[in-house]
């Protein structure tokens, strides 16, 4: 008898839940963890949609490609430009339908499928107490004495590592391998992902770490520490953007559209800077949190379209691998 009551209660509870539409969003762990922007996004969007936003953390594209047409995802949140070509070719995504004139990116963005929500640039971050005079340009970095030690990420396993080899490719072109050969003695080690590198840097193992121009903002805002800075190079910095997209055969097309519009709203854009420690994609500088206004940012931004990047990727990684394997 008791079991029956419990079963009935469960059934009615799930029936009640079924009345609330569910928007399923695939996002990376760094988004959905309680220290990422996920919980805030969920709270803000649920307040306006009368729906239940459910984040599913994990690998984005591999999982989506494995699931194919039968995916539960309505939105994929946090794709990067290294994955957009593959994602576009899968045919799993629909146009976002949002006007792009509000974007405040340093490059022109006209993509109809992938909608930017925040951006940053690759940069070498250093500690002013340890390195009083950082290299003033990429050339300076290449010619710095070999006891200047860097940690970087592997372009074969990390997005920031891939952005770095494309950055070197964009600055040095055919001379990329020679540039890597000059850099090689200064590279203390290469890690699988960003976290390992940044951990080594904050532990004092290296002088500079490959990270983002926005990294110092975390230290300024969360720790009131102004000793971490990004070295700005006149040759330009590689642009890194995070994107959201709507899944074509979503069973919640209206909700998904609302979510895409929400991404560009001022509420979202004002939150994302300190939520994801990146620059909002559609918010003029005046609207940024104070710590972000203090950041040193590059004048020149380098970026390859997904087709260019796909064509150059193997060459760029190979130049890196050959130079560092010697």
């Amino acid at each position, binding site marked *: 008898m008791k079991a029956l009551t419990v079963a009935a209660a469960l059934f009615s509870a799930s029936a009640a839940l079924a009345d609330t539409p569910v928007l399923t969003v695939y996002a990376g762990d760094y988004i959905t963890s*309680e220290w990422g922007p996920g919980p805030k996004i969920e709270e803000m969007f649920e307040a306006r949609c009368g729906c239940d936003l459910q984040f599913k953390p994990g690998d984005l594209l591999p999982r989506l490609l494995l699931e194919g047409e039968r995916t539960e995802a309505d939105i994929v949140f946090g794709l990067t430009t290294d994955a957009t070509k*593959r994602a576009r070719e899968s045919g799993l995504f629909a146009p976002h339908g949002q006007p792009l004139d509000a974007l405040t990116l340093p490059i022109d963005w006209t993509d109809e499928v992938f909608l930017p929500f925040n951006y940053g640039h690759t940069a070498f971050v250093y500690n002013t107490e340890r390195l009083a005079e950082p290299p003033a340009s990429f050339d300076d970095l290449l010619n710095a004495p070999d006891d200047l030690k860097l940690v970087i990420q592997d372009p*074969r396993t990390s997005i920031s590592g891939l952005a770095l080899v494309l950055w070197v490719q964009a600055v040095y072109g055919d001379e990329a391998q020679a540039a890597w050969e000059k850099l090689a003695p200064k590279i203390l080690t290469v890690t699988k992902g960003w976290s390992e590198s940044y951990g*080594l840097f904050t532990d004092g*193992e290296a002088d500079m770490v490959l990270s983002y121009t926005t990294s110092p903002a975390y230290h300024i805002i969360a720790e009131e520490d102004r000793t971490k800075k990004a070295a700005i190079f006149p040759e330009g910095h590689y642009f890194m953007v995070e994107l959201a997209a709507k899944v074509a055969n979503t069973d919640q097309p209206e909700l998904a559209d609302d979510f895409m519009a929400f991404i560009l709203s001022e509420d979202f854009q004002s939150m994302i800077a300190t939520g994801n420690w990146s620059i909002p994609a559609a918010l003029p500088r005046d609207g940024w949190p104070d710590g972000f206004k203090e950041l040193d940012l590059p004048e020149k931004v380098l970026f390859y379209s997904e087709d260019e990047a796909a064509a150059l990727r193997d060459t760029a990684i190979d130049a890196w691998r050959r130079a560092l394997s010697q």
Partner: protein
Amino acid sequence: MAPRALAIIAGALVIGLTLGPVTAVILRAEGWSALRPGDWQALRFTLVQATLSAFFSVLFAIPVARALARRQFRGRGALVALLGAPFILPVIVAVLGLLAVFGTSGLANRALSALGLPELTIYGLHGVVIAHVFFNLPLATRLILQGWLAIPGERLRLAASLGLSPRAMWQVLEAPMLRSIAPGAFAVIFVICLSSFAIALTLGGGPRATTVELAIYQAVRFDFDLARAAVLSLIQLGLALVAGLAALRLSRGEGFGIGLDRVVPRWDSGGAARGLDAVWIALAALFLLVPLATVVWRGVPGLVLLGPEVWQAAGHSMLVALGSTALCLIWALPLATRTGEVIGLAGIALSPLVLGTGLFLILRPVVNPVDLALPVTALVNALVSLPFALRILRPEAETIRRDYARLRAALGLTGWAWLRHVLLPRLRRPLGFAAGLTAALSMGDLGVIALFADPDNATLPLKVYGLMGAYRMEAAAGAALLLLTLSLGLFWGFDRGGRVGARA
């Protein structure tokens, strides 16, 4: 059910759980992929580092285990338990701990520069081997120590009354024991090191230290090239199988005959041997415990920063660990045979990424894999821990089966009676150790969770990475300390349970 039937079922489960996912990945990939030029270099490096790492782990473990086997001192039990700790740390935490000692600004280099000596660099092949020895020396030591403790006291007494010299002791008792134990220890460590990649890359200093597992990671997570992932993981599986078979051929132990389970003090431990033993124990303790101490040291300030979600994750991890442990032991008992041990190696030889992807593909048409995040994690952890459990259990299980075969036949002991009165009581020490190791390993593992991650059921290692990814390095260090403490607690609890009353 007949023991043989149970063994066949257990073995078939292992094979099904490894070959099934690979097959699913191959079917999905629809085709094969040729190897790239860089892959051969990766394969060579993988073999070289795994061979060196396993060789040095076992080599150094022999004197340390011998010293621990013949010395009794205060804190010996605690030391033996603590020695297990490096093995169960999440990779990222252990690497940061090692570098706090051996890195450019680590303790070792600071001491050297204070003495006016040149700086040492850890980055390179030697760094990879040092890190792998750090992880695996404790395991090797425990496995070999187990062998030493399994020599019946009666043989030692006989050796003493015959007045055998240390050299003769070595020839008659110790060398034969090592011949039967060491190859298996070498094989299991070789196979773990085969699939190493974050440690190899970070301490190897760059792409020279590319392993096959890195190529698999790239293929699965970055290129979504399943064909390539499948080919590479089959190569890895093949290598592990060869290592397992070779170890099996080499480890022809004779056994020492039956004893009366009495603990007998050793008589060969005076004089110069005493000093040498002390040196080995001190060196091993220093090498293993100083990096651990840095993990503790850096973690303490972060402990106060941990919120309820971290504690909740710790609860999930404990649950998974206990589930894995029960599963693994039930699985291991029927498989504790020579063939069983080779089959068991498949569990750690298969890349966790391919295993995860394959399981996802298999489960997906039936259920939502995310709903099964914790059970799948527990199952995979049990599978991955199985080779260790078998390595620990098999030598003694075989000895018991052989030594008590006559008793068994005479009394007609079967099934439960045999388990309860003969096998389990005699296996108590290795069972405790195996359970401790499985529980601790399961606390630290996050191999397959990438595709199965469930936000409400996250495990503690995932939280450590989450905190690091959000710049919260201090809190991450605190969470890592919590993980270390819980893992060690589980390990110590089970291991101690196995050693109650055994005085060893």
